[in-house]
């Protein structure tokens, strides 16, 4: 039976299908600067921290003092483990005497140290220096069998590219590829698990980041879509804080539902979201705002301008604010941070402001629809009812163009708020585009913001194209039919 142990690297075990298997041989490949040595050291120190013995052996000329100096900024480096449960060896001397001596040296290292993890850095030099390319393959085959017989997981760090892995990949139990990608001005670190024997890895590209804690892998959000189901909704009627909107929605929101707030800039999407959270706080329901632009203080001030006492709920910890800089964002890293916040604070209501920032920053735009579906599914599975704002770029258009067309399809409800020009005056309007519950109000209504709150009680008295921003005055007969 396969014995799998945790790598201790956040997110890595998830993409590996559980962790690293005891007595198996892995290859971590990547060009220089992709993070192999950091990952190798992180695995060694994490393994040693669990009470096991781990060895870092290297074919490279870089001294351990030099390498450890470079690693000193990482919190995983526990110097008290060095020499006891973390051991360093140089393979340079055995290397000059040929493959047999080198293999004998490695066997000796594993047996003498009692290591259950061996990381070998710079194994590619075997290929560069020995007479035939067969030598590295033979070396790898031996390492794989040593790993199994000696019960020591072995990880070879090499500079192979994806194409070069074909010749050696068959002789290891797992292959992890690290790459640096540059998409326009954004730099993205990517990890792919190309192969794992005996475990179900999450294939495809996943972003990873490097910080003082070492490497953190952010599994591609879509890869977990559908794994978790939302709880059963008990009853209809979660209030938004705006009675008229609750009436338009047929009596409020279904618990654990998702609502997309679509609107032009300045139309009042954020205010709707803040009302939703304030109402929750007033009812004793915890909330979370995941935003990209305003601090907690700014959000509280914005809410207070329309008479919402959100500050009280923020100050009491009933509502948390997760602010992220919108300039350098890994959308997967952001999503996993959001899930972690939710797991800690357990909010019942979540407001994301806004999806447009994610749309601007996602490295591959074709991912967006699946990403949103996965995000919404995970949030619902965590027992939250969700408001997500998104912007319509143009104030006036020929038709109503959805900013992220597939996003609305994946949501339970869609609410449009927009500004239109009518009779030389800017008017706000609101309508329910879509709702899961049947009895919704089809009337387009005025969306009036005052210092006492939001009012949506009056029908919008215009016809012909208000949703596009091109309203024309309705005649009296048409206007009189709505109530």
């Amino acid at each position, binding site marked *: 039976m396969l014995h799998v142990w945790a790598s201790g690297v956040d997110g890595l075990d998830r993409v590996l299908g559980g962790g690293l298997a005891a007595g198996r041989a892995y290859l971590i490949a990547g060009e220089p600067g992709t993070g192999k040595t950091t990952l190798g050291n992180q695995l060694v120190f994490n393994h040693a921290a669990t009470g096991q013995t781990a060895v870092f052996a290297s074919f490279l000329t870089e001294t351990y003092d030099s390498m450890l100096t470079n690693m000193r900024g990482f919190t995983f480096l526990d110097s008290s483990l060095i020499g006891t449960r973390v051991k360093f060896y140089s393979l340079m001397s055995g290397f000059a005497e040929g493959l047999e001596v080198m293999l004998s040296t490695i066997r*000796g290292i594993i047996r003498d140290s009692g290591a259950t993890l061996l990381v070998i850095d710079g194994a590619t030099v075997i290929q560069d220096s020995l007479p035939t390319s067969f030598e590295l393959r*033979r070396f790898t085959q*031996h390492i794989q069998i*040593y790993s*199994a*017989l000696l019960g020591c997981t072995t990880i070879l760090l090499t500079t192979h590219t994806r194409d070069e892995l074909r010749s050696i990949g068959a002789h290891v139990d797992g292959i992890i590829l690290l790459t640096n990608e540059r998409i326009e001005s954004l730099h993205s670190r990517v990890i792919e698990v190309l192969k794992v024997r005996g475990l179900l890895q999450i294939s495809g590209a996943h972003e990873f980041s490097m910080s003082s804690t070492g490497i953190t892998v952010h599994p591609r959000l879509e890869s977990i879509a559908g794994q978790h189901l939302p709880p059963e909704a008990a009853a209809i009627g979660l209030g938004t804080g705006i009675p008229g909107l609750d009436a338009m929605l047929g009596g409020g929101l279904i618990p654990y539902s998702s609502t997309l707030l679509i609107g032009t800039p300045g139309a009042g999407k954020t205010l709707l979201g803040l009302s939703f959270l304030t109402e929750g706080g007033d009812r004793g329901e915890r909330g979370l705002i995941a935003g990209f632009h305003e601090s907690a203080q700014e959000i509280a001030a914005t809410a207070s301008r329309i008479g919402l006492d959100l500050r009280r709920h923020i100050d009491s910890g009933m509502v948390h604010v997760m602010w992220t800089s919108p300039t350098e964002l890994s959308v997967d890293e952001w999503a996993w941070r959001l899930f972690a916040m939710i797991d800690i604070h357990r909010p019942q209501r979540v407001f994301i402001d806004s999806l447009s920032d994610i749309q601007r920053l996602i490295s591959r735009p074709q991912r967006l629809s699946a990403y949103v579906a996965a995000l919404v599914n995970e949030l619902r599975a965590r027992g939250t009812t969700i408001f997500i704002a998104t912007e319509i770029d143009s104030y006036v258009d020929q038709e109503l163009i959805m900013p992220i067309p597939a996003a609305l399809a994946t949501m339970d409800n869609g609410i449009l708020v927009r500004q239109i020009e009518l009779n030389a005056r800017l008017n706000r309007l609101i309508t329910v585009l879509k709702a899961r519950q049947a009895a919704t109000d089809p009337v387009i209504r005025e969306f009036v913001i005052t210092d006492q709150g939001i009012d949506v009680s009056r029908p919008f008295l215009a016809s012909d194209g208000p949703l596009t921003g091109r309203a024309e005055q309705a005649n009296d007969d048409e206007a009189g039919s709505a109530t």
Partner: protein
Amino acid sequence: MKTILIVEDETILREVLGELLIDCGYQVLTSSSGWQALDVLKTNNPDAILMDVMMPGMDGRDLYNEVRKLPSAGAVPIIMMSAIIRPSQLDPGIAAFVAKPFNLEDLVSAVERAVGPGETLA
């Protein structure tokens, strides 16, 4: 120093078994097939034979029967290895059985049961 004849058709596994038994203080002879092993036994008298059961051509059970017919090797301890065949499916006269995949402890323990410990190198 005690000598072990390793009969294993997989090259790398044969090499690694040899390396590890040498590390444990044994001398090693190797054969890649049953026929080659019988040739080796014409001129050598190992203290034990470590053989794979599943081999192309003459498999381990056939080789076992042939070895037992040899006057010079009729009583040599035989250790069999297999991932599929169970010990109950083998001749009860075998000295030990090692189930694949195995670790070094399983292997050394089986060899030691058959011929005693290897010599520790000074």
